[in-house]
């Protein structure tokens, strides 16, 4: 089975062709401001290197585009927010606890309406459908393009959100609607936050996904296009464009999974040195160690499961001054190949320092020959110390562990580090993210109410359904593992009702679904 994996990073766009377990070809091109032409170029380069890439079973794209949009506050849409639940939860309105700059950028009209449910399924008060209709008409007048709707206890009873969506569809049919019960579970503020983020990313997601599809078509490759999600699984691009929040942190997940795949190590630390940032994380049993509890994206609380990473403002494109010595966090990013010294520019970057120190051969090394040797060595030492400290902070066990180094800036990591048994370099390390995207997994999920069954039996039955769905979607049965089990008794329904949610993931089976 052949797959193309593409990683669109802030600095580089990488593409690989994988045939089974073998990396057939790998290319690296600069990310472009429009993202798409970078992908077009990467695919053209890949086809030139390996013409067989035209006939593959699947193309997987991993992108940090949506996370970056939130973090860098660009490309976001101003949205309207509808909270249904008054008189409950009135003192903490939507966008509470958001960073001011982000809230000011995306917060349009905020509407709080009566309605919502109790934990036992009773309505708090009747849903204010008239208020919803009046708000929908205001949205239409104001030209609102995207609305986020969150109702109290909607994961137990989504009817208020569904009624709101129906009214919005009647009154402003061109407006996109994100409903909270589709994205999250119990925990109103965090679920609502994810809904708001999704709503303000929808425009960008639709444009980006369409551009990806166009770029693929233009390249001549005919294969289904998937986008990778934050848990290392994939979703068809047409579906993924409705849920951009699910791709948050897929970049680090891909690079860590790629590192595990390339190094054949299941338990190790991983350092991914990109152009702008360095991420340090830990692999356990071949998967990224996940962060506990609340994860913030661009300063917004969510309940997403994300790799537990330490991010540093250090990369191949980091701005460097030698005297006095300073490194990063600003970076030339994707302009590395025009602005850095070795490429004829005037900006001194970590890459220039690496070339001057003889750590790599890139561009024109004569352009950095004038840098004073002692100052270059001091800069290299400082970079090594920064990485060493970060690795130490991520370690949770005593004893030395192996460290897998990936990413385009891997040359910045010293060959020996305290607390590390060996620094492991791997073939294709510069494109580990794209490899991780190519080996992304398939999931199966069930979210269903079971009646008159003991809890264990209900969970077992749900697990079997989820496993079957994963296999139908293309997973190999012997690689399946359960990543999520959640059950919630529904006291208001008769007959010992239990809502069970199970999520199972597995490797893509050879030969496809």
């Amino acid at each position: 089975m052949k797959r193309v994996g593409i990683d669109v990073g802030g600095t580089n766009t990488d593409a690989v062709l994988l045939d089974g377990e073998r990396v057939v070809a790998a290319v690296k091109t600069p990310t472009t401001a429009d993202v798409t032409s970078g992908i077009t170029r990467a695919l053209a380069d890949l086809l030139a290197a390996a013409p067989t890439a035209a006939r593959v079973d699947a193309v997987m794209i991993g992108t940090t585009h949506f996370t970056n949009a939130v973090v860098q506050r660009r490309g976001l849409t101003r949205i309207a927010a509808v909270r249904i639940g008054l008189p409950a939860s009135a003192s903490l309105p939507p966008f509470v606890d958001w960073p001011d700059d982000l809230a000011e950028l995306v917060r349009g009209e905020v509407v709080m309406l009566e309605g919502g449910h109790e934990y036992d399924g009773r309505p708090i008060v009747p849903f204010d459908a008239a208020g919803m209709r009046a708000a929908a008409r205001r949205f239409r007048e104001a030209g609102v393009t995207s609305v986020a709707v969150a109702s109290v206890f909607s994961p137990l009873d989504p009817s208020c959100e569904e009624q709101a969506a129906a009214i919005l569809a009647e009154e402003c049919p061109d407006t996109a609607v994100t409903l909270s019960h589709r994205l999250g579970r119990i925990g109103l503020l965090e679920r609502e936050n994810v809904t708001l983020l999704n709503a303000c990313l929808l425009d960008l997601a639709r444009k980006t996904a369409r551009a990806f599809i166009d770029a693929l078509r233009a390249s001549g490759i005919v294969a289904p296009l998937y986008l990778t999600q934050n848990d290392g699984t994939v979703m068809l691009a047409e579906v993924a464009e409705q849920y951009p929040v699910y791709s948050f942190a897929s970049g680090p997940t891909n690079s860590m999974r790629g590192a595990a795949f390339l190094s054949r190590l299941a338990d190790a630390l991983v350092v991914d040195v990109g152009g702008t940032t360095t991420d340090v994380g830990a692999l356990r049993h071949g998967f990224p160690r996940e962060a506990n509890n609340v994860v913030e994206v661009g300063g917004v609380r969510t309940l997403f499961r994300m790799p537990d990473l330490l991010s540093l403002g250090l990369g191949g494109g980091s701005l460097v001054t030698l005297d006095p010595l300073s490194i990063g966090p600003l970076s030339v990013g994707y302009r590395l190949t025009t602005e850095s010294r070795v490429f004829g520019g005037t900006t001194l970057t970590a890459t220039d320092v690496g070339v001057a120190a003889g750590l790599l051969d890139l561009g024109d090394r004569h352009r950095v020959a004038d840098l004073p040797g002692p100052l270059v060595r001091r800069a290299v030492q400082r970079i090594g110390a920064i990485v060493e400290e970060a690795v130490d902070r991520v370690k949770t066990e005593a004893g030395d562990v192996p460290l897998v180094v990936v990413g385009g800036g891997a040359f910045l990591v010293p060959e020996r580090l305290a607390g590390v048994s060996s620094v492991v370099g791997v073939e294709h390390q510069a494109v580990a993210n794209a490899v991780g995207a190519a080996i992304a997994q398939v999931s199966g999920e069930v979210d269903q109410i079971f009646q008159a069954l003991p809890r264990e039996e209900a969970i077992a039955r749900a697990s079997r359904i989820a496993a079957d769905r994963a296999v139908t979607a293309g997973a190999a049965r012997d690689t399946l593992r359960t990543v999520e089990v959640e059950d919630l008794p529904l006291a208001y329904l008769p007959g010992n009702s239990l809502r069970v949610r199970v999520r199972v993931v597995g490797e893509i089976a050879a030969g496809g679904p």
Partner: protein
Amino acid sequence: MRPVSLAEIESLAIGAWILGTGGGGSPYLALLNMRRLYRAGTVVQLMDPMDLADDALVAIVSNMGAPLVGQERLTDPRTIERAVRMMEEYLGRRFTAVMSLEIGGGNSIQPFMAAALLGLPVVDGDCMGRAFPEAQMTSFAIHDLPMYPLTLADVRDNAVIVARAESWKWMERLSRTACVAVGSIAATCKAPRTGKEVKECGILSTTTKAMRLGQAVQAARRAHRDPVQAVIDIERGLRLFTGKVQDVARRATEGFLRGTATLEGLDADRGHAFRLAFQNEFAVGWLDGQVRVTTPDLICVLDTVSGDAVGTETLRYGQRVTVVALPAAPILLTPKGLEHVGPRAFGYDLDFTSVFR
């Protein structure tokens, strides 16, 4: 009396969540309310209980209900204010100060929310020194102080006054029934206390204790030291188990969140299993099937990396956590205290043996 800074309330939220032993509800939402109130110019005063006149009247406030419900129906200062006002109307007297029923969890901040709107000071103390699920599980109950009247306010225009109750159990039953009826979450003002009663029967200085606990965790994080160890050091606690959440069974019944959680050992505890039973708060812990710890010793489940408390409603499959025991207030360990808050009070036929003996 001294002003409390918002930074101290931030620390209080961290410390109180740890003392909540899994229950009491995350203080985060109450903290968000306080940030909004402070941003609007509010400053709450903290009062040393020893400065209370014997005949002063203190409002004992708490948000009552299932923590899971509090994640959706978010706490609102106006509801707790209404419960206190209702009590003043019923008594025909004004309060001198407000005090927390329980320092564990969100109820540590409820008096600050009430105080902000009422213009009253907060007394440094509570009557549990932690969190407990039921009305009779307080130092005031252990001292046989009267348990009535009680006022209960809902977000809708519903209000209940329990004028009399024959016993603490009856007060618990009556108020719990009203609480369940309004959706298993309500703001309550418990039986008012005189300054003398607070000084003699309260668990004092727990507000500032929780603030110091939170500050210790914050300091450890800033210095990249182990925050779990910082908790153990400052409270003279005991590390019981380090592992990963393997299974959580939860059910919301009779206004409580009950259930069990199973942890699979990691690091030094690899190959061992720890089981926790909870009724809002963690009540009993078993190591490999043997009872290891029971209430009223504080059973705290902390995020192994951040040191943040993990609540019974936020426990999730796969979380890496450390179980820590902290010592309980001495009044809870007396024979009378154990009748109210020992394992048998939670339906476990076990004798209490403190892990600290």
